[in-house]
């Protein structure tokens, strides 16, 4: 733009100087006036051409929009096993580039530059329909259609999303395609998306290795999401947005047994067949013009989730030598062990509720209460009390070969179906989060937040000992978390966010 202004100034100065020059010359020699005017016209035409070229170049640059934000923070953790228990971190460092190639065509690229965790967040193309201006098609990696997922972390009123949303939509984004209907004449939005379905999820084999390391699909089943929202105005009081979303998906069975959330056997299944998972949620956002603006937002989600079973194999070779009648016998024993844990399906439920209140133009208070029970089939007191699924089966097959009189090889194959037992992953959590924001200016937000999770308590034995505890060594001192108590695990966050 400055370049254009400079060009305009140059043209103005040039024109004034030239006209003055022509006037002076005309007084001296009237015959040169037509020549001078022609010359002037040519030069102005040339400059005009350059100006149009510069405008065209500038228009190309205007198609690119760069935005982003950085969240630098200091956190203090009250969890006994946390070490260090206070630290500075860069929670999010995002730069978003949007290129509008043509009317209705948009390309978005957003990496996250957090130290040690460089990751691609968004990479998608949006095609808007040019005729009704109501439909858009998005393809690539983008946010899954859910209110809290799509609500930007730079705007969210508490530092992190609720526990249930983080569990159901890890990493928030997924690779797929989305059709959106958003008519211009009514406040309705309908989203229909199809995804690979395993994005951001970690599934481990029996040896602990992630079988979904690249976040690409590892089965042929695609997951479908649908969300519809509608807005109504409540006169001068404010407005209400409400809606629902549903998820229908499947992951391939990796072992042949399904165990239910209460740790009883449900059914046998063929490896590779779909393990179905589905859930639905209801949401609302109430905005009220009360003493400077406030809102109440919430969502309740319930359904069934699955964790594929895992298969691991180990192989061992043992050599033994023995003399018999002055003859050395070498014996090799090869042991192949395959361990299979069952596929696990659980019913779950959870919700979150936000209360947000603006205090003047610069300050904002937020409170969120969220609950997530990942396994509604059992209570906390049932956790670890018994091994309800104990279908532990070991099948062993041995074969021996003798290649000559001195060498004997025995191969043993063992397949073990292991038991699975309830764990800390079955416990429900309720979390109260308080946050105060100060908006320093248009770009800077300072946040002080305190997150207070409360774990569900597990049962205890006759001696009063916890059925479940985890230990961790902190500087050679063993720290124990006893899950038959509500142990301290609060987090204090002081965050400085810069957005542009």
């Amino acid at each position, binding site marked *: 733009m400055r370049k254009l202004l400079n060009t305009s100034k140059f043209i103005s100065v040039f024109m004034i100087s030239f006209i003055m020059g022509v006037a002076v010359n005309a007084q001296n020699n009237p015959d040169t006036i037509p020549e001078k005017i022609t010359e002037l016209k040519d030069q102005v035409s040339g400059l005009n051409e350059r100006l149009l070229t510069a405008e*065209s170049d500038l*228009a190309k640059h205007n198609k690119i929009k760069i935005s982003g934000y950085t969240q630098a923070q200091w956190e203090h953790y009250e969890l006994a096993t946390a070490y260090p228990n206070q630290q500075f971190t860069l929670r999010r460092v995002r730069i978003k580039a949007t290129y509008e190639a043509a*009317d209705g065509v948009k390309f978005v690229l957003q990496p996250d530059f957090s130290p040690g965790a460089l990751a691609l967040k968004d990479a998608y193309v949006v095609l808007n329909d040019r005729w009704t201006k109501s439909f858009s098609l998005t393809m690539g990696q983008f946010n899954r259609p859910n209110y809290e997922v799509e*609500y*930007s972390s730079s*705007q969210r009123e508490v530092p992190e999303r609720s526990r249930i949303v983080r569990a159901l939509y890890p990493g928030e984004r997924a690779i797929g395609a989305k059709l959106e209907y958003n008519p211009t004449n009514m*406040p309705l939005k309908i989203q229909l998306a199809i995804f690979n379905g395993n994005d951001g999820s970690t599934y481990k084999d029996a040896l602990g290795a992630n079988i979904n390391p690249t976040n690409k699909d590892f089965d042929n089943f695609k997951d479908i999401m649908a969300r519809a929202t509608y807005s109504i*105005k409540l006169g*001068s009081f*404010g*407005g209400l947005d409400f809606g629902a979303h549903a998820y229908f998906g499947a992951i391939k069975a990796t072992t042949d047994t399904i165990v239910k959330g209460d740790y009883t056997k449900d059914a046998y299944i063929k490896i590779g067949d779909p393990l179905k998972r589905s859930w639905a949620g209801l949401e609302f*956002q109430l*905005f*009220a*013009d009360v*003493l*400077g*603006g*406030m*809102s109440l937002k919430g969502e309740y989600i319930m359904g069934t989730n699955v964790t594929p079973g895992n298969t691991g194999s180990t192989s061992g070779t043992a050599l033994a030598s023995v003399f018999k009648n002055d003859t050395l016998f070498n014996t090799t024993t090869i042991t192949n062990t395959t361990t299979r844990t069952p596929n696990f399906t659980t019913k779950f439920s959870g919700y979150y509720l936000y*209360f*947000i*209140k*603006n*205090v*003047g*133009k*610069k*300050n904002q*208070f937020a*409170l969120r*209460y969220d609950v997530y029970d990942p396994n509604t089939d059992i209570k906390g007191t049932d956790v670890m009390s018994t091994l309800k699924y104990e279908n532990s089966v070991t099948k062993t097959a041995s074969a021996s070969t003798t290649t000559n009189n001195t060498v004997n090889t025995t191969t043993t194959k063992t397949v073990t179906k292991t038991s699975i037992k309830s764990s800390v992953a079955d416990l429900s959590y309720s979390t*109260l989060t*308080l946050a105060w924001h100060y*908006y320093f200016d*248009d770009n800077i937000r300072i946040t002080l937040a305190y997150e207070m999770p409360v774990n569900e308590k597990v049962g205890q034995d006759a001696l009063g000992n916890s059925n479940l505890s985890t230990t961790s060594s902190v500087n050679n001192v063993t720290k124990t978390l006893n899950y038959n108590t509500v142990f301290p695990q609060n987090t204090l966050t002081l965050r400085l966010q810069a957005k542009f």
Partner: protein
Amino acid sequence: MKKSIIFSILGVVTLISFAFMAPEKITIKGSDTMVILSQKWAEVYMKTNPNASVQVTGGGSGVGISALINGATDIANSSRPMKQPEIEKLKSRYNTLGVEIPCAKDGITVFLNESNPVKELSIQQLSGIFSGKITNWKDVGGSDAPITLYGRENSSGTYVYFKDNVVKNDYAASCQTLPGTAAVVNAVKKDKNSIGYGGAAYAAGVKHCKVKKDAKSIAYEPTAENVKANLYPISRYLYMYTRNRPTGAMKAFIDWVLGPQGQKLVTEVGYFPVK
């Protein structure tokens, strides 16, 4: 215990909220079309209310609404309704939907050079001209000459309104954008083959093109009577937007704007009153 903590916190926050109510100094930012009108309002209002302070700046409707969302202004002037993404931003920052106050009516005028033989155009013809499909005056009943286009910058509400309601397409790349309707009028005055659009308040010195809804309709000039009677097809409301229901000094000013004195100034400046 947890409930009592939550209710105590909510009580404290509500009490603190009372301390941050309406400001005494009022800032207005936005639509260039409304700058002269708003300045007139501010000037007369401050004369009759010596303790009041009203500061007015332009920049375009989009700029004003952005300032409202960012907390940089108390009132945003806009010559178009707020868009849904803007309402969403206001929701997420201030948890309100904004308050829309129609305060005047305007007819968007299509300017032609006085020497242009063309007197009237339909909406469809205007769409063709500004989208670049019609490039010669002879195609709309004029002389054989190329059409030069002048329009507003994309931060302007007039730009958006004209695009959404008349052009209904992208503007032609050859449409030269100018900062303010006065600049458009000035450019059309100097260029006999040109056409431009802007607010009626700035129309002195150039010819007003009559506009008709379609080829069969009657063409109307953007006069007060035609705009009031909704006969002129490109008329619109001019709005003031606030984040919350106005209170205190801001309510007093807006009530005055919508009252007889404020609406009288609307007519004096060249727009049409809403009351």
